[in-house]
């Protein structure tokens, strides 16, 4: 089994562990490519209630301190839009991804 940062190469069964355990945590599994709509926070309107941070089902919104608006982690955000839906001041826009 060869493990580079990008991929794991497996020859076959003789080369594999018995159980399907990854070589690292899910932190390596960046899921941003699943996203079609991207949440964008308008920081000028944000009231720093952190409701979006609480509701994010993937823990993809980062909290710094209570005086700083939350930051969306675009490596993991799948674009579900729950943050935009829950935001009480509607300062999160879902913007179409450009690829």
């Amino acid at each position: 089994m060869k493990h580079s940062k990008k991929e794991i190469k497996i020859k076959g069964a003789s080369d594999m562990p018995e159980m399907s355990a990854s070589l690292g945590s899910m932190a390596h599994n960046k899921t941003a490519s699943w996203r079609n709509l991207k949440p964008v926070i308008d920081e000028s309107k944000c009231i720093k209630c952190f409701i979006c941070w609480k509701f994010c089902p993937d823990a993809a919104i980062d909290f710094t301190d209570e005086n700083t608006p939350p930051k969306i982690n675009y490596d993991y955000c799948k674009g579900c839009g729950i943050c935009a839906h829950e935001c009480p001041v509607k300062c999160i826009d879902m913007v179409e991804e450009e690829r």
Partner: protein
Amino acid sequence: MKKVILGDHAVSYGALLSRVQTIAAYPITPQTLIIERLSEMTANGESNAIFTKVESEHSAMASTVGSSASGARAFTATSSQGLALMHEMLHWAAGARLPIVMANVNRAMAPGWTIWTDQNDSLSARDTGWMQIYCQNNQEVLDSIILGYKVSEQVNLPTMVILDAFFLSHTAEGVDIPDIKEVDKFLPPYKPEIKMDINDPRSFGALTSPDVYMEFRYKMQESMDKAKEVITREGKEFGKMFGRKYGLVEEYRTEDADTILVASATVASTARAVIDEMREAGQKVGLLRIRVFRPFPTEEIVRVIGGKKKVIVIDRNISFGKTGIFFDEVKGAFYNYTGNKPPMFGYIAGLGGRDVTPKVIREIMDDAIKKDKPESEILWKGVKL
């Protein structure tokens, strides 16, 4: 130390002596006495295991999977409807290659509502990747729990130790309870190669593409094949240490026999008396008890009954639309056999806990012996028409 104990309590002692570290269980008749006794053992300090009360059997196995994956020697017990409810998690335990040992008390499936024994509950879990041991007495129950961990921890597959409802679970028998220090010599602490560890985070059982899924299944089958050797070797080793040897199958007076009865669990232990009685009358009959059903002992079965004149299989189970399940598999074992294939008679008896007495077994034997070949694939014993 010899004690007169119930089959359920033999399970509890087996778990205690194996120094299990976690027990998560939900009560169901006739398994309740197992976990009742284990909860006492954990409460009074006899066992250091963490005892978790859960809200269902699905949760019992899910919790057991979690603790086993984190490196604990994990135990649970169930029966019938409970085993059916945890079915999804049975696949998880085996697929995640966790050496869990679970006792299942064979109880027939509802409806009609029943608490009495037959094997359809555990046989419905046949293809989950669990090893299955069908026990014939309380001593074997206790010993098989200890042996279960010894084997499972070498092949990374879980073991189901199976005992008949009431005929074992609630029947008191003399059982030799080995000294825990002796058991320690046989069964060292569990040390997994990979486990859940916050200092070495991994994801377990995550999305597996068609590229590698099949290879994981290939490896499970490889381990099942290896388990045959490990069960045989450890069963002998256990015999050297404790005076009781165990194998995949058990033969009784088979050597010069021309008719072989194949049975499992308590039907097999009862059948021994019938074999003796018929031997005394000069009939050349013998018994093959299938102890381990998964992995299936094809070679041993063919070795014992190949070339015999007649084979009679008693199933306390049925695969609806086919036949008795042991009968079907015993027949299958002979497909590639080039020698003289014996005619096989498949009887179904004792469903839902109906008694399979020496008289019933004798009638089955006499019926098969007088016939050249069975008149149908299923021979129903004692069904009232």
